[in-house]
């Protein structure tokens, strides 16, 4: 039974949500915890997801995708993450890069990359972060220098999701490291790992949660990339591309947070009806009810904010204020709710026998990924201050 919600769903969205939920119940939930504890890449599940069309959710039909809006994408990511947050993650940078190509790429670039991305034959990753620059992206050091028909890329990218399994990577570089302001010298390239000998995968990074998914370093040593791979064909646009694209990532992370929090609530409700202390189910104790009420209310607010922010992005506008709020709020809720769920499970919540310990380890990633929540607050504040003028 889908989560009861105030969020209005079209008939298409309702059907999609209930079918994705069926898939998650039957295929994901029985194995997610075990794979997660082994930190094993869920190859079979990802193949199934490809087969179901999940790599092309938002790619336009003319390039082989489904052309679904971000509101639907958000609902799908939420359902997947209710089963296992990592599955909502695996399609994140893929969806971001495909959106970037579709929004800013030339017609030739769209035809070249989007069809193989829509089927999942080529999965994508996004390389912004570097060892010395995460929040402060304008401080990246990676350079791209024109050489004939190519550019030569040098530098190291850090925390690249899908780094091993991905084939196409959108790489943020500096084509003019001396440019002022620095963002005006930034350019994004699409780099095909298989066709770029100077691009190599570094170590797999071990994480607290968000397991099963490959997060790696990527090295670029005199990596030659054709000039035709500059997104949009024009230097100096990279920052603008990334800032618009990161909004998609924030919708994804907010949706994942709602999914994880929902799972934590559902597990807590079931457990509190079964577990008895002092002669009655713990659900009868007011202390537990107060937690359940907080959890349910915050999750619903997070869901509505996230869907509304996604709808704003669907309208084709910059939505950094709204997606920033959604990402900030939903991920803080996921963090709080997963801790409350752990408390409700008592001693068992602290063990690997219960799923809540997984939610509790998965939630903090979302405070950080796609821009830390401190950075979201700066974005929100900047927008609000601007809104009220001088």
């Amino acid at each position, binding site marked *: *039974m889908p989560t009861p919600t105030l969020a209005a769903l079209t008939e298409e969205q309702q059907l999609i949500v209930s*079918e994705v939920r069926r898939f998650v119940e039957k295929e994901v939930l029985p194995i997610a915890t075990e794979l997660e504890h082994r930190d094993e890449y869920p190859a079979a599940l990802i193949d199934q997801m490809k087969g179901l069309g999940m790599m092309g959710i938002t790619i336009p039909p003319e390039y082989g995708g*489904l052309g679904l809006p971000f509101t639907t994408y958000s609902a799908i990511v939420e359902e997947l993450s209710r089963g296992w947050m990592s599955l909502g993650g695996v399609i994140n940078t893929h969806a971001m890069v495909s959106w970037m190509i579709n929004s800013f790429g030339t017609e030739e670039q769209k035809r070249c990359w989007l069809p193989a991305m829509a089927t999942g034959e080529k999965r994508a990753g996004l390389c912004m972060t570097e060892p010395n620059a995460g929040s402060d992206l304008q401080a990246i050091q990676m350079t791209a220098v024109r050489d004939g028909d190519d550019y030569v890329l040098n530098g190291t990218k850090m925390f690249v999701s899908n780094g091993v399994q991905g084939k196409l990577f959108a790489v943020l570089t500096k084509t003019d490291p001396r440019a002022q302001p620095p963002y005006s010298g930034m350019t994004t390239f699409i780099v095909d790992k298989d066709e770029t000998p100077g691009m190599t995968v570094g170590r797999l990074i071990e994480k607290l949660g968000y397991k099963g998914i490959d997060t790696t370093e990527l090295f670029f040593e005199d990596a030659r990339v054709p000039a035709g791979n500059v997104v949009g064909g024009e230097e100096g646009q990279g920052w603008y591309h990334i800032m618009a694209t990161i909004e998609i990532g924030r919708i994804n992370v907010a949706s994942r947070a709602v999914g994880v929090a929902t799972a934590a609530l559902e597990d807590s409700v079931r457990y509190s009806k079964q577990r008895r202390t002092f002669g009655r189910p713990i659900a009868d104790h007011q202390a537990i009810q107060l937690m359940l009420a907080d959890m349910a209310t915050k999750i619903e607010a997070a869901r509505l904010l996230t869907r509304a922010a996604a709808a704003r992005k669907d309208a084709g506008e910059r939505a950094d204020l709204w997606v920033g709020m959604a990402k900030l709020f939903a991920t803080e809720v996921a963090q709080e709710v997963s801790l409350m769920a752990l408390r409700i499970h008592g001693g068992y919540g602290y063990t690997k026998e219960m799923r809540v310990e997984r939610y509790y380890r998965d939630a903090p990633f979302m405070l950080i990924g796609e821009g830390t929540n401190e950075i979201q607050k700066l974005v929100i504040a900047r927008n609000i201050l601007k809104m009220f003028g001088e």
Partner: protein
Amino acid sequence: MPHIICCVKQVPDPETPASQFRVDEAAKKVVPVPGIAPVPSQFDTIGVEAALRIKDKTPDTTITILSLGPESYRDSIKHSLAMGADEGVLINDPALYEADHWVTAQVLAAAIGKLAPFDLVICGRQAVDWDMGVVGSTIAEILNVPCITIAKEIQYKDGQVVVERVLLDGFETAESPAPCVVTVSNELGEPRYPQLRQIMAAARKEVKVWTASDLGLDAAQLKNLVSLERLYVPEVKVETEIIDGETPQEKAEKLALKLREAKLI
């Protein structure tokens, strides 16, 4: 252009925890469990899968989903459409909500007649709620067409239906000219998951809704043959006996004797 009609019933989710299963003995009804949505009967979904496998080989096949029940049954029809079926028909008539297998089969047979011509009707070997296992063969009887039960594979070619049947101790191949009725078993294999693209198409498809009178039937004339006398959850008693002994061998011997006494071995 082969036409396959799949009968799909909606049932309470059989994976509902036993602890939550309740019946209302006075009303002689199963009480729906809040929070657990009903599902298409598994054998019926396997029937849809069987039809889709035929369509995979013969793409101009049309698959119609047929369901008798209230409005909520639309969910199971939509799921079948999302799997790849072409059309859906819901027979929704409050006068038929209490139909037994006999009335159900008559109504479905009348609807199949209205959907004719058809080559194949596929039903589950039984519905997983009441487990009667008679609707498929009763439809065949009423339509006066052959019936092959408990299939693990159905092939259809040039008006001929070839079915691999499941027996207690093996398999058997049966053949029939179309049209005929085939009931399917879980040995046929897992039903596919709907692709997002097909889910989107299914959302746009209209489900036709018919009543008894649309089928030329008078609901008042349709009388159940089976009446439900009592509905209850049987009490299960578990008694435990610990077999004692000095050594594992001794315990095993005593256990074996006990089991033989109980005629279990």
